[in-house]
């Protein structure tokens, strides 16, 4: 499903690795949330000062763009660790849990692979931005900075997906959800 069922279930940690991944993913989510709230406040200041006849915050649009990219990336690990990514459940609904879990192991290993590639290419893009010297139009923020800030999130997502794959391949273990 696209949208979250409220409230998100409390997640029970499965083992030590799980506990640490969970802490890391939650810390990332808090960072993303804080960034998002900072963008909300910046946006409010900009609108209010514009309405009062002063200048809007200089570069508010590009700040929102950079902030949103960093925040959205930071949200992905938690979603991945909890196995909340969208998929079609319909056709496998009647399958035994063990079989479903094997399918999910394949799905999560592909997720890990794709995220590893994306982390690599995004890191590459950050390095490239260092060379080309591209900056944001009004604030002249070097473009590689927000790009680089997404890489840890993407890498952590990959690790979470690998962890889930391992869990799903291990027979007899309950997957925490």
């Amino acid at each position: 499903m696209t949208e979250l069922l409220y409230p998100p279930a409390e997640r029970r940690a499965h083992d030590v690795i799980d506990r640490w991944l969970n802490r890391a993913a939650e810390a990332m989510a808090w960072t993303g949330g804080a960034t998002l709230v900072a963008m909300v406040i910046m946006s409010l200041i900009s609108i209010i000062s514009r309405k009062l006849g002063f200048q809007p915050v200089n570069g508010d649009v590009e700040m929102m763009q950079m902030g949103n990219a960093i925040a959205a990336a930071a949200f992905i690990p938690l979603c991945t660790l909890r196995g909340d990514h969208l998929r079609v459940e319909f056709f496998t609904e009647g399958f035994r849990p063990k079989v479903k879990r094997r399918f999910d192991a394949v799905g999560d290993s592909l997720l890990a692979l794709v995220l590893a590639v994306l982390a690599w290419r995004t890191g590459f893009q950050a390095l490239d931005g260092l060379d080309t010297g591209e900056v944001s139009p009004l604030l002249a923020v070097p473009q590689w900075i927000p790009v680089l800030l997404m890489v840890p999130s993407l890498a952590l997502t990959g690790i979470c997906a690998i962890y889930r794959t391992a869990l799903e391949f291990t027979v007899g273990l309950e997957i925490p959800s």
Partner: protein
Amino acid sequence: MSGTTLGLTAFGILLLMLVVRIHIGIAMFLAATGIYLVLNHGELNSLLFTLNNLVYARLSNYDLAVIPLFILMGQFATHGGLSKALFHAAGTLIGHFKGGLAYAATAACAAFGAICGSSLATAATMGQVALPELTRRNYSGRLATGTLAAGGTLGILIPPSVPLVVYAVLTQESIGKLFVAAVIPGIIAALGYMAVIRIIVSLDPKAGPASERVSLKEMIKAQLGIIPVLLVFLVVIVGIYGGWANPTEAASIGAAACGIIAVVSGGMRFKDLKQSVFGTAIATAMIFMVLIGADLLNSALALTQMPAELANWVKNSGMPPVAVLFTIIAIYVLLGCVMDSLAMILLTIPIFYPVVLGLDFYGMSVDDKSIWFGIVALMVVEIGLVHPPVGMNLYVINKIAKDVPLKETAMGVLPFLASDFIRIVVLVFFPPMALWLVHVTG
């Protein structure tokens, strides 16, 4: 292999991947990868360099920034006790009619939908508030769960609406205009659901007994309780439509306002804040992962030239435009049996949009067609949320109503589904239903 064959083959493989539970965004990504590799005869560079900026370009899109903001706003609204206040206020107003609390639940869903961009969140939130009350008043399980499953869809039918934002970004359409266009059809949807309730309770009066009338004083007090909601709605909606903010800014204002209300009137504590943040994180992440995959798939499909060729073929086939449109609607209904609304929009709009824009509907301008088709598509994918077998809203509501069998809920939603189909047919033959307000406010 011709481009169209390649595009269709990749599409088939994509559907197969979906069947075996591969994450939708990842499946789209892999199908796109296949297209790139075939087109470039196995050469990797062009694909790898396309990937360089894939994530940042998608996530830094200014229009898409409204999605986490609207989700955050909905999370705060949920934790601020706004849903309860809405249902209570509507109940004191119209609860004393036959089926009155079902009307009240629909009205509260519509009002909540006006500050929440998500349908499942609306269903879940209103369900938790309204279902116990409906059960206590001896409403039939079928009517109670059907009303709330259908009412939940008002979360996306009434703006703000996440699927409309995605449609706007895919088609470079104005978010503001699409939101305006959705207002009247959204209100008509709510009225349609109330008409269905009316019919049900007149056929079976026991399904929805009337509650006793409350005192005027209590009624006024209840109405005062929803003033914060009205304020947020006015700020956001008037902000976007009436003009002094763009959608991203309006969403910021709405999120801030709902956050403040949640703290002041709802007594939001740390646990609630944590759930708001995590809820926002997870919902945002699942949407953006699909967006990333869809972005790559769209580029790959453009490279095959399949969407353009398909659009041309349909245009030259001599099929009547309305027949083409109903075929598209039928495909949506079928896809909706197995797929999520947003994934459907992301998957199909790049293909269907050029087709529809290439056809003549009642001599409408390209701009009008683009907005009108957006609302049609929104309404059709929304149906997928409530029709069996996998309408998510059914599950959400049924989980809350522990003593109602799923089959009863599925039966309960059918009459509401009928009103959805009637509304869609009317919109197909009468585009002013969506466009009139756009032209008046334009």
